[in-house]
């Protein structure tokens, strides 16, 4: 592989922080969820790259990414279930509509 490891890392860092940015600016619950998916994806790239370039003796990063994908799926399914439940209540999935909480 002749692309330096730093390029991959910077790519994933950019992806991660774009996710963070999205999480901050968006208020739609599903979009928030998608921002989180971006972040998780960036993390997976990190693991894989480290594994491939630096520590190829064992497949620790590989397996971590594998498990992380599975967990992300589980997390998303529960989150979607909750979002649908919220939608049934108020017919909206904007976080601001939900947050009628008083402080």
């Amino acid at each position, binding site marked *: 592989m002749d692309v330096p490891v730093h390029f991959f890392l910077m790519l994933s860092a950019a992806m991660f922080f774009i996710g963070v940015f999205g999480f901050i600016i968006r208020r739609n*619950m599903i979009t928030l969820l998608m921002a989180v998916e971006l972040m*998780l994806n960036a*993390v997976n790239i*990190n693991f894989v790259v480290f594994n491939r370039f630096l*520590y190829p003796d064992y497949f620790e990063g590989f397996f971590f990414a594998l498990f992380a994908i599975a*967990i992300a799926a589980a997390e998303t399914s*529960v*989150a979607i279930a909750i*979002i649908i439940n919220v939608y049934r209540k108020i017919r909206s999935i904007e976080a601001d509509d939900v*947050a009628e909480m008083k402080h």
Partner: protein
Amino acid sequence: MQIEDFLLMRHEILLTLGILIILMADLFRPHGRESSFSGLAIGLMAVITLAGLLPVPQGSLFGGMYVSTPLFTLVKNVLTMGTLIVFLQAHSWMTGPLTLRRRSEFYILLMSTLLGMYFMISSGNFLMLYIGLELASIPVAAAAAYDKFRMDSAESGMKYILSSAVSSAILLYGISLIYGATGSLYFERVAAFYTGTPVQMLAFVLFFSGLAFKISLVPFHLWTADVYQGAPTGVTSYLSVVSKGASTFVLLVLLYTVFSKIALLWQPMLFVVAVVTMVVGNLFALRQQHMRRFIAFSSISQAGYILVGLAAGNQLGMSSVVYYILVYVCSNLGVFGVISAIEHATGKLRMDDYNGLYHTNPRLALLMTLSLFSLAGIPPVAGFFGKFFLFAAAAQQGMYVLVILATLNTIISLYYYLLVVKAMFINSNNTPVPFFRTCCVTRTGLVLCALGLVVLGFAAVVYQQMFDMSFGL
């Protein structure tokens, strides 16, 4: 696997069996017959607690993925007992009509969460830690949204799952950098290579932020109040006690083992976070009227006190934190027991509703007072000892400034705890909570808390045991 290995993992194996038993019991229950599963779950938890008391050697399994030491076993026992008490207190709610036709799920969710905490505590590898953490948080979100006929319960679940997802993403990014910087995910190897290069520092900060979400340290606490307010009381008490206790303990172990070489970095960091957490938690708690929000902020500030002990980084600190977690379990569950009993009987949840409680329900008021005093650190209840030891640990490291700030914060917290006491004993009320009797299962839970509060302080043997198992940096 040898038979001893099974014994070493008995907490996890028994709990998994328990989950399966409840699942099966629900599947094969006669058609049209509702059963509450409450007794079954309570019995199972009691069995696990008892089994946990068996003396068992320490060791590690699966090539270091799973590690068990007497201290881990002890903390697992504390968590199991906490869950047991939560189940006891949730009994009357679970037998009510609101939860009809989906009772077993409540227990399965909470028990699998507990299983996640077990694995989290016993992990010897970041992968196990992460899986345990997720197992300990995703089902909780579902449980928080469990009371689906209420809007704020659904909202609470949503807030929890989103903040938990984002925090675990940050945590994961930290872990990935740790992996990149050290070349391994096994704690032992990571610890050996953790010398404090810039990327390791960054990794640690990210990792810490991720965990700080779970412990709801300031500035990662924003979800806490809404989630605590919206979730069913049983889930809230579970979140604030068992879940928080487990995450705190994991943080403790990691700081003292994996990250012990960069103590110079995290000690000042914890210093700042502890102070900010205490102050913010206390200041917000001052103006809360809703009991669950009130407890939410109070428990944020309690996490701050725990950090005082954590920051010390010595043997005293470790044992004090563990001891405080135990005390905190009893005190907070005492508070929640009273809150949920009153909520179940009357649906009242505001502080004004507690006016004159002593005149109608003296025992509940007394238990509430004891628990609040324990949270505030007033003798002779256990919280006094817990706080003293935490502060002693920090003082041993010469962090007197931190101790002074912490003690001043206890005074603020005393003020708002006394507000509740004042409501119950002094304020008059035209429509007080009428007298009611809690069912005997719930009462057992309350009595257990009261016993713990009174006995833990005086029985020095508990603390001595923890001290013997602990270690410093």
